[in-house]
């Protein structure tokens, strides 16, 4: 499992994964109360993409990815540019 360093690379990889396998891809947010770390993970059961958020800095990134997944997963069609 790989932790990606660049947010833009992570988002484009995530979008590619979901676009290729929209029904297999799942997105999870893991919050550990002990140290407050937030980890984003997107996987299609074959490949796994992870990104670590920094506390108090990356709320906008979390909002972006939440909005993208909610609109694409709840919608009837898959839109790469949906936000």
């Amino acid at each position: 499992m790989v932790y990606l360093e660049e947010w833009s690379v992570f988002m484009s990889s995530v979008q590619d994964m979901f676009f290729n396998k929209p029904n297999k891809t799942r997105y999870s947010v893991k919050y550990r109360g002990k140290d407050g770390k937030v980890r984003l993970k997107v996987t299609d059961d074959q490949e796994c993409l992870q990104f670590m958020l920094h506390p108090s800095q990356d709320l906008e990134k979390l909002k972006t990815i939440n909005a993208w997944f909610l609109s694409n997963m709840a919608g009837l069609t898959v839109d790469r540019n949906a936000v």
Partner: protein
Amino acid sequence: MVRLGPDRFIKRLSSLYEERKDDGTVWVTMKRVGEGKKQPKDSGCLIRATDGRKKISCLITSSYKSVDFEQQLNSLMGTHLFGIVSNQQVRKQPSSHKKKKTT
């Protein structure tokens, strides 16, 4: 796994974060459902949350206004994950200036 409506799901998720803020872990997972061999009655985005013991879930369909749910979810995560309060009240600090006595 308890299936809840969007509003109740937000409230229960907030409780999960509160209970695990000092110790423990909370996972929130989103997955698209609706196609495949098994056809569920509803299709949309299945959101699951767990702290390892309690499990809750919610289904957001295309007919539901997901914008409201998204705003509530972002506000909730901002508060519990990043410690950001949505409406912060700025308190005025009391003045520490002392009047100088002139003689």
